[in-house]
């Protein structure tokens, strides 16, 4: 009896070991686009190995129920895997929520199975798992709601918000400590979950749409850490490894995002983003702008040698990326060098803009990161800004009173000519005026991004025949 059991156990542990190695390889292969798809395959094989290993577990009797749950879950997963590329941020937030839900449910089940005989440390990590899981669950749902624009994007703030939120968290931790000392106290466990769920909602309420890239990364990190905590509860090294990988990934991404928005590190860790206080002062005296038509813009672009396109989320909202691709083709045909400058927070989650441009078939070697392309702007004939605003605002460099002072920006203003496609002169999301628009070398192209780019493309292709 014992030998058969031990044999099974060895196979299970071996499969988990293989899965862990494959997970690490999977992330390693993500480092470059050439190998990235191998990474997905490695991850898939690792996942299958882990699930097969788990099914060999000696205590499992009810295979039918497992199969039903796996099939239902896969059925839900397929449509979630087929969403439109513009909807990837909310899908990602939703899947953080699903992952966190799983962790919370398992943690809850484990608590009621084990109470009152739970060692102190196990209870501590179990509480950590459930608190992080619950707050990530509701927090991610809130984030998904804001990204899907079901919920208002505007941050909701009130006096003493941080005090309220932090006291809620403190109460949840106090309950966790109580459970550590008296693990038989089953009545207080639901309270800990309820408080954490509420905290998750309140944590996201004060956060505006512009901060979403950081928030998503942070929730990613929380989801990973809660899974790692679950690994400690279940004494599963595989889970600890996967959780640690996910946690560090989310952590690195949030640090990158916070740097790109010039936010302090503590700001990221505690999720206390608040809203950039829009400086309402600064007398809005009438300043003049120069505007141009599609025809004029096409003429300038056709005469240029080097063009840099600066896309922002506005481009994606207007669904203009495919038209931008046509513009790219038309200009390349005329021998104009076209590149794309991608700010780290362009789009609504880290790397979102790259995906949107790749979807429009724009080759990824033409996409340049901020630090790589900023030095090239003085040699650029035309910088074409489409649907981006704050990331091109030169006052981030010069104006100490500006709320975005210190934020790294794309040095669009150093190009010889700047063209900005914009609906109107209304200030951007953060409500900050952009001096770029009033510069002598700036041409404002007023209109919907998609139809305006289309107009330029028509002019360019029309001119080739004349």
């Amino acid at each position, binding site marked *: 009896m014992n030998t058969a059991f031990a044999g099974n156990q060895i196979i299970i542990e071996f499969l988990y070991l293989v899965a862990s190695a494959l997970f690490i390889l999977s992330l*390693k292969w*993500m*480092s470059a*686009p050439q190998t*990235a*798809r191998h990474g997905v395959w490695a991850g898939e094989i690792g*996942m299958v190995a*882990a699930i097969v290993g*788990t099914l060999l*577990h000696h*205590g*499992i*009797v009810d295979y039918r*129920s*497992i199969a039903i*749950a*796996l099939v*239902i*879950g896969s059925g*839900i997963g*397929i449509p*979630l*895997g087929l969403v439109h*590329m513009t909807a990837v941020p909310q*899908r990602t937030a939703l*899947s*953080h929520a*699903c*992952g966190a839900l*799983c962790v919370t*449910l*398992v943690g*809850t*089940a*484990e608590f*009621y199975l084990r109470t009152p005989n739970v*060692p102190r440390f196990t209870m501590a990590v179990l509480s950590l798992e459930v608190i992080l899981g619950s707050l990530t669950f509701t927090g991610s749902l809130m984030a998904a709601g804001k990204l899907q624009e079901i919920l208002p994007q505007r941050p909701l703030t009130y006096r003493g918000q941080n005090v309220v939120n932090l006291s809620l968290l403190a109460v949840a931790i106090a309950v966790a400590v109580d459970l550590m000392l008296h693990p038989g106290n089953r009545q207080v466990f639901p309270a800990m979950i309820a408080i954490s769920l509420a905290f998750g909602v309140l944590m996201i309420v004060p956060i505006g749409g512009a901060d979403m890239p950081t928030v998503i990364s942070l929730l990613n990190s929380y*989801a990973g850490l809660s*899974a790692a905590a679950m690994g*400690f509860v279940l004494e*599963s090294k*595989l*889970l*600890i*490894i*996967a959780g*640690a*990988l996910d946690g*560090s*990934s989310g952590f690195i*991404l949030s640090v990158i995002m916070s740097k790109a928005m010039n936010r302090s590190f503590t700001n990221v860790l505690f999720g206390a983003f608040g809203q950039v206080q829009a400086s309402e002062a600064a007398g809005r005296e009438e300043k003049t702008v120069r505007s141009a038509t599609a025809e004029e813009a096409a003429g300038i672009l056709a005469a240029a040698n080097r063009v840099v396109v600066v896309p922002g989320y506005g481009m994606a909202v207007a669904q203009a990326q495919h038209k931008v691709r046509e513009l790219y083709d038309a200009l390349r045909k005329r021998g104009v060098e076209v590149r794309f400058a991608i700010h780290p927070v362009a789009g609504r*989650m*880290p*790397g979102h803009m*790259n*995906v949107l441009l790749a979807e429009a078939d724009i*080759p*990824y*070697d033409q996409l340049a*990161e901020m630090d790589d392309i900023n030095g090239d702007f003085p040699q650029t004939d035309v910088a074409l800004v489409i649907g981006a605003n704050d990331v091109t605002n030169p006052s981030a460099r010069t104006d100490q009173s500006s709320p975005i002072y210190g934020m790294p920006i794309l040095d669009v203003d150093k190009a010889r000519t700047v063209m900005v496609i914009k609906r109107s002169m209304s200030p951007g999301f953060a409500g900050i005026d952009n001096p770029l628009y009033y510069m002598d070398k700036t041409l404002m192209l007023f209109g919907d991004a998609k139809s305006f780019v289309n107009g330029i493309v028509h002019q360019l292709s029309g001119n080739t025949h004349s």
Partner: protein
Amino acid sequence: MSSALIDGLFVFMLAGFVGFEVIRRVSPLLHTPLMSLTNALDAIAVVGAIVLVGEHQTKLAFWLGFLAVISAMSNVVGGFLITDRMLKMFKTSRPTKP
């Protein structure tokens, strides 16, 4: 503190460092697929849920586990699917056009 716990902490520490080193090298180009991939990998939590369902110790544990398997599995399938869809789109300059 049990030895399993100490082992766990060592594993966590090492995996954390490996994660840092590996993910630091991921090109910003691929940060969105990276996040959806780590999401799918994180759904490995499904193994804990499967055990709960399979062992059927109490009704509560069974149903919590059942829901947990569903939510994690939706992440596994959806996460890998969308990551692969995104990565398929990344193309380099076509060699036909020098």
